[in-house]
């Protein structure tokens, strides 16, 4: 691994951490699509600031971009408040309009400058290490790495300082408002952080990967844990894994780094979606199956208990009769009997079944509950 490759991965990993930290709160607060809207509208902020200062490295760009992110949500809120438009439609109206203005401005007035739509959308991670940051003549590292490290620290400090407030307003906005935590202000603070992160990140990885990194790892972690601190940590780790593995996939296929990272975010989610211990689809199917057999077995022992000691017991307890009695398919009835025998709820003798002590107990319990 060359120094260049290492630096690219370091930038990607730092970006992933910064994005997934704020992303956790977007996912939990159900405003994940804010990242999509913001990552597009911040472009307008960058364009406007660029026309003002004519310098792509000016910090004014980040400030202006963050402001546009916030303005986007002010617009969305205003539109929603008129009650003429639903919130989802309002988001779907505002950000394409703002983004369109940005695209028109760029292609009309900024061609030839290092500000083209493709790089805004897709990022140019491969070239990121070439723009260096130096302090007092000493090379510190790639510009993007410095920017993203600072943003990561800002995000971390924000989350640590306002942890209680964030947690409360995320899970119980009503209570937070009652206690005077001003969820509205916190909401806009979060939106500002998302905007800053989006600006810093998309210079390196493009706006679409910003969305993937903000939503993917937190959504994946959400399937694995119930605890907020674990979710934060897990998201950061998943983000880094997607970033690094994505880089190598891109290296292997000679394809877009940002695209490959987003793909890896998807792969990690898919694997978790299928195999997560409790919330995965396979676990879900297993649980449903087990419940089905469990239910059938219980029906069987209750049936036996009902007829125990009665004259028709000898008839009612015959195995080959069971499917008619319970209106099951013969094959299903045979399997239920087998399973019940295996769990020692019943004993099988001469084509008939009898309740064991354990089976009788379960039948009683089930009827009582």
């Amino acid at each position, binding site marked *: 691994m060359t120094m260049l490759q290492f630096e690219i991965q370091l930038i990607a990993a730092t970006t992933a951490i910064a994005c997934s930290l704020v992303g956790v709160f977007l996912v939990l607060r159900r405003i*994940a*699509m804010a990242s999509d809207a913001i990552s597009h509208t911040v472009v307008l902020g960058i364009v406007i600031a660029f026309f003002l200062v004519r310098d792509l490295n000016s910090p004014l760009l980040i400030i202006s971009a963050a402001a546009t992110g916030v303005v986007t949500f002010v617009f969305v809120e205003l539109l929603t408040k008129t009650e003429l438009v639903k919130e989802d439609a309002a988001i779907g109206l505002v950000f394409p309009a703002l983004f369109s203005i940005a695209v028109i401005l760029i292609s009309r007035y900024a061609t030839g400058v290092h500000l083209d739509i493709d790089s805004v959308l897709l990022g140019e991670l491969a070239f990121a290490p070439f723009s260096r940051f130096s302090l007092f003549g000493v090379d510190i590292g790639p510009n993007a790495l410095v920017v993203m490290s600072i943003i990561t620290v800002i995000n971390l400090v924000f989350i640590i300082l306002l942890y209680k407030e964030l947690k409360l307003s995320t899970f119980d906005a009503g209570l937070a408002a009652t206690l005077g935590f001003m969820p509205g202000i916190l909401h806009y603070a979060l939106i500002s952080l998302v905007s800053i992160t989006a600006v810093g990140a998309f210079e390196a990885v493009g706006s679409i990967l910003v969305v993937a990194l903000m939503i993917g790892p937190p959504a994946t972690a*959400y399937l694995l844990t119930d605890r907020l601190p674990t979710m934060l940590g897990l998201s950061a780790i998943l983000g880094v894994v997607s970033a690094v593995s994505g880089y190598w996939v891109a290296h292997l*296929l000679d*394809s877009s780094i*940002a*695209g490959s990272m987003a793909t890896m975010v998807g792969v990690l989610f898919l694997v978790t979606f299928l195999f997560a211990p409790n919330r995965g689809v396979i676990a879900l199917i297993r649980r449903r199956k087990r419940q089905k057999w469990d239910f059938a077995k219980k029906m069987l022992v209750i049936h036996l208990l009902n007829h125990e000691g009665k004259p028709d017991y000898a008839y009612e307890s015959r195995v080959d009769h069971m499917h008619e009695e319970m209106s099951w398919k013969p094959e299903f009835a045979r399997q239920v009997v087998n399973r019940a025998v295996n769990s020692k709820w019943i004993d099988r003798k001469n084509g008939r079944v009898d309740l064991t002590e354990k089976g009788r107990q379960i039948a009683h319990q089930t009827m009582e509950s």
Partner: protein
Amino acid sequence: MEGVMIILSDLLFDYTMRTVALGSAILGLVSGALGTYAVLRKQSLLGDAMAHAALPGVVLAFIIFRSRAPFVLMMGAIISGWLGTLLIINIIKLTRVKEDSALGLILSVFFGFGLMLLTYIQRIPDARQAGLDRFLFGQAAALLQSDILTMAYVGGAALIIMVVFWKEFKLLSFDREFGASLGFSMQGLDILLTTLIVIAIVIGLQTVGVVLMSAMVVAPATAARQWTNRMHIMVILSAIFGALAGIIGTVISGLGPRIPTGPTIVLSISIIVLISLLLAPNRGLTWRWIKNIRNKNKIELETVLLDLYTLATKHDKPTHGHSINVLDTMHTGTHGTLNTLKELQKQDLVEHQEKDIWSLTQGGWQKAQDLAKERGKTS
């Protein structure tokens, strides 16, 4: 003026201009009409996800069939857009991940995957000329007659299906349970309608691009919604707005160099939305504002009239005069009653007797009595 004439004549006679305008109009028409359902069913952002999810399908179709025939690419886009939607629905249904996260996740991952494929095939000879990257932002200028024909056929088919299933789709959008109780397969209809919306989106990808296409689904319908409460009028209006934006956008982008068509179309439809929100009768903001002021004025007038009436009933004759100071004291508003009295005077309901003494006229007395009765009944 001359410029406009040139544009108009171009629109009629210039091949490229005509093709592009026609394509944009078709795209606006179809996405406008079908977008109505997306907006009514609160699936506005699903359109965004569908559009992004279509990208890998376009590239895969090209890789598999080595063809950039519009129909082939469109089919690829439809299949992968539909697959993305299916995944979103199942993620929401099977896990605790919420709709917004599922949308954002599928949107970005599918788009990223498409991008990965797109950059990967750049190495395949003659793929560079395939021009697939115009699906990102759209490139209306590159539309060919074959593109337009495909758009018209596929879009036309989608619209016909929409008309055929008109009643069923209406049920699906407004009262799903009732529809199910009538024996319609709501799930089947849901799948069909979703497919139609995917088609509407895919039709526009070449012109407007993946990134902005969602606006063409949401905006025309939102604008149309402001003007009417009736479903069929909304669909027709939405289609007209969409087509109009398509043509306006094409014309404006033809006015100067380097004005991209897609964003211009989106901006045009955004302005139509803004106008609708402001000016539409009944629902529009201006309308509401005027109504508010009118109501306020009416209440103000009636209050002062009734105050005078209350005072007059304490005296022997209805036209007994009272000082404005008394009225000011009775009045709960923030400003004085003089302006209101003048307004009432214009309507011949009160009289100015002397200095600051005002009284009811006979007509005013009658009107106040009616009002008092009316209020007595309602309160």
